[in-house]
């Protein structure tokens, strides 16, 4: 972290850690050990390869649980896109004992449904709509028959009755993350249910849940101008790498995914060696590791997931696309940048704050306040972190100004940065912002659990998240200027605009 200057002091966090805060002006320093690394985190790896990260914290008797499987959209292939996300939904459907009155009776019906579904797909391929309609009804009827044996949403209900907060999951390009908070006296219950879900999942109510996911896609993409623009922009920017494919999946793929596809995906990618369990809150680490060994240590190791080796080739010229939609214009501009492990990643992170972090940022001042060309502007990097990213600038033009005028102003600001670099005062502002943020992030159990979990999974070390924060403090104005020159070129750019039919 940066050298503490006048006004800085060391303070106790109540976590056995000295935290040094230094919001005064200063110059960039080489990173050293960070206070976050001294958090009393305990990590163990079970014999089956599952990693358990525990951070005991004082305060209210609550505990946050995060299970992160290192699998997501990038592990999918055309034809089965959306499978990681559908599986995320299916893991709330229960197990051989949770969510059922008679699992064998259910399974007997699964076979009939799945056979009908295979036949339906062949009928759809030969455009036999009458057979498709008949088989759709048959599958719905069989699912209704199976429902007689189902105890609906029982997994959710058990945890809800225990006082669970925020029970949910999310699927990204590189990870599928399950999370919940519970009163501390329900910690063992979490192990009992999570171990059961890992060992004995049953993908019941499969076809109706697949319909739910298609409705989610309609909501997030097909009836959302911003969602549509985002999806089309990535598709244009990535021609080879799976980052160009939406995590939620294409509609035609969602409509063909089978229960067997999902089961196979689960078997391949949800092994203990691919999982990190993070527990933060009012817990005794020894007791937690005892439960982890008892409940999670018996899971079979599973397969090693195949690596993602696709590499997006260098872009050889600007790409421009339009998305026609009944809405006012928006523009999204992206440049290919490296992954987060790259040495330029900290400078790109600071650049993002410098361009759009708050009202004093360059793009906000120029586009919104001075020229009044836009009402909003923000930057982001994505759609994942482990592979070469896209640094994107999204802006909403203010009528009567056009997306072209907005683009011109953005490019002008980038040109100024490439020529002159940021001022030292600007650098200090964004460093201070990053540093204060790193203190404030320590306030929430669930926020810390996410942070530790991602760090342990991505970097193999829970401490790395804190080192990254410190590395931001070492970025210089020249570093920022260098990355702008290197990546923000015309040929490396993909621009997507939202237009109305016949308009521009």
């Amino acid at each position, binding site marked *: 972290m940066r050298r503490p200057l006048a006004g800085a002091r060391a*303070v106790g966090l109540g976590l056995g850690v000295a935290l040094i805060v230094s919001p005064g002006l200063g110059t960039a320093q080489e990173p050293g050990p960070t206070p976050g690394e001294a958090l009393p985190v305990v990590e163990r790896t079970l014999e089956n390869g599952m990693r358990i990260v525990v951070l005991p914290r004082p305060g209210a008797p609550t505990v946050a649980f995060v299970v992160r499987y290192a699998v997501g959209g990038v592990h999918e292939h055309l034809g089965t896109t959306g499978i990681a996300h559908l599986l995320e939904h299916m893991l709330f459907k229960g197990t051989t004992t949770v969510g059922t009155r008679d699992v064998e009776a259910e399974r007997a019906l699964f076979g009939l449904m799945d056979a009908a579904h295979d036949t339906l797909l062949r009928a759809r391929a030969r455009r036999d709509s009458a057979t498709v309609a008949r088989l759709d009804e048959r599958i719905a009827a069989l699912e209704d028959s199976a429902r007689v044996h189902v105890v609906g*949403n029982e997994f*959710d209900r058990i945890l809800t*009755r225990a006082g669970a907060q925020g029970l949910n999951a999310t699927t990204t390009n590189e990870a599928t993350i399950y999370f919940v908070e519970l009163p501390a006296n329900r910690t063992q219950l979490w192990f*009992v249910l999570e171990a059961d879900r890992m060992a004995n999942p049953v993908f019941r109510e499969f076809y*109706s849940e697949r319909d739910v996911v298609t409705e989610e896609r309609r909501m997030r993409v097909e009836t959302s101008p911003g969602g549509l623009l985002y999806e089309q922009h990535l598709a244009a920017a990535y021609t080879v790498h799976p980052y160009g494919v939406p995590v939620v999946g294409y509609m035609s793929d969602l409509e063909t995914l089978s229960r067997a596809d999902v089961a196979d995906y689960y078997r391949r990618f949800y092994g203990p060696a691919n999982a990190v369990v993070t527990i933060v809150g009012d817990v005794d680490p020894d*007791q937690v590791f005892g439960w982890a060994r008892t409940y999670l240590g018996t899971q079979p190791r599973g397969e090693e997931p195949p690596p993602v080796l696709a590499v997006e080739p260098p872009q050889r010229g600007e790409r421009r696309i339009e998305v026609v939609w*009944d809405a006012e214009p928006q523009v999204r501009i992206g440049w290919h940048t490296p992954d987060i492990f790259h040495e330029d990643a900290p400078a790109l992170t600071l650049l993002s704050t410098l361009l759009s972090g708050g009202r004093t940022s360059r793009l906000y001042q120029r586009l919104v306040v001075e020229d009044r060309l836009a009402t909003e502007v923000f930057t982001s990097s994505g759609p994942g972190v482990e592979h070469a990213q896209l640094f994107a600038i999204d802006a909403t033009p203010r009528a009567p100004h056009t997306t072209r005028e907005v683009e011109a102003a953005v490019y002008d600001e980038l040109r100024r940065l490439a020529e002159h670099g940021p001022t030292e005062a600007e650098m200090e502002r964004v460093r*201070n*912002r990053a540093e204060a943020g790193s203190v404030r992030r320590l306030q929430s159990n669930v926020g810390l659990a996410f942070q530790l979990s991602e760090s342990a999974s991505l970097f193999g070390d829970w401490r790395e998240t804190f080192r990254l924060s410190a590395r931001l403090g070492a970025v210089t104005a020249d570093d920022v200027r260098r990355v702008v020159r290197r990546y923000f070129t015309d040929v490396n750019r993909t621009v997507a605009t939202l237009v109305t039919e016949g308009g521009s």
Partner: protein
Amino acid sequence: MSARSGLRKWRPGGTAVLAGALVLVGATAPDASAQAVGRAAAEALEVPPLRFDPPEPELHEVRGVPVLFLADPGLPLVSVFARFQGGYGRLGREAYAAGTALPTLLRYGGTTTLAPDSLDALLEYFAIQTSFGGGGESVFASVNTLTEHLDTALTLWGSMMREPGWDARQLEVWRGSEVERVRRRGDDPARLAYSEFNRLLYGDHPVGWEMSLDDLRPDDVSAARMASVHGRIVCPGNLTLGATGDVTWEDIAPLLDRMLAEWPACGEPLPPSPEPRILRQPGVWIIPRDLEQSVIVMAHPTDVHLADEPEYYAAQIGNSILGGGGFSSRILSRVRTEEGYAYSASSLWTTPRRFDGIVGAITRTRPENTVPAIRLILEILDDARHTPPDDEEVGTAVDQIVNGFVFNFDSPGQIVARRMFYLAQDLPADWLERYLAGVQAVTPESIRSVFADHLRPDGMSILIVGDPDRIGADDLASLGPVTVLDVDGTPAGSR
């Protein structure tokens, strides 16, 4: 699980309970040798007691302003919260734009002595975080700072609230953005549906107002108009303060006293909040849009109010069972899990403290499933009026609140903010404990009764944003008289 019977034995007793150890469920230590997983293992678990001394904020008064204070030496940070009782809803439509702009301009419009840029530079230099927000009924603000800069933070934050600068450029940025927002209100079908629904039900009441270009003339947000609205809302007579963090009362009290000392008293008193006259007219209103998914909102008025009354608690638990309780609730179970009609589906039941609220449901589904989904929801609502929920449903809804009670004390900021809300709503300091006792007294029959008295599936005003051709005109008409609306909410062809 044995949790519930144990929990029901615990009865809070106001501050005496809060001051003592909170013990939920007596049981033995966990058996680490157990390896069984699944339902039976979950049911067999003994739940150890949960011991906790919930911190209780102190109530002080500084220059007549109530201040809730809770020390929290965990991190070197201090947060201070301000809540002003009053908003544009008390001042009439002519103050709508200025009242809506007020929080943004307090944050970004500078002060009488600091230009916006200078203020931002200072806030960033000291890494001070501020936030400002509000609505028709209240304005709120907060500041979060490293402890060592508390004095500076309160000086700046106090000045932002007390002596705003109404910077002309920032006023114009706000007005321009709002004009653009008006132009774009049809872009997001959900936003369009919810705002049109409020307008349909509440009419010319602040809840039903939707910003229009007529509200946004330059004079509507002139510095003079802003100052006039500010002087009646953001003033000590309307203020409640809260403070928490790495500071003692002895250290922060003089700083708060200094902040309040130079603050002028409120101007002309605010008139009372207008009483809504909520539309009670069954029927279907559709805004035609060529969409792959319809947005559906339905509701009618009810007169269940936030109060320490059995009916209020029954409505709370009833709503949780109906569609407010997530996956365990009936609407989500039937509409999503069983039928696969929707990703999201829920009930809504608003219970304001003094005025009537609304009860109904919200979902989104593909055009062809629009009418079937509406019919299913109406069927679920109708069933609730006649058949009491079973013990499992009531148990789930009550246990969720009782066992999750500890999360009400998850952070000192949350504890202080909640007590500030109680003061503003004229609720007793032990409201949370009363609430806990109230929901535990709810019975299946009391829920059926509150539904029978207050839920009218045949009285729903149903608004849809979607494609009428694919939804089916005849099917729509079968739900009630259909009115086609333009995007701006006027009946089509009436202009």
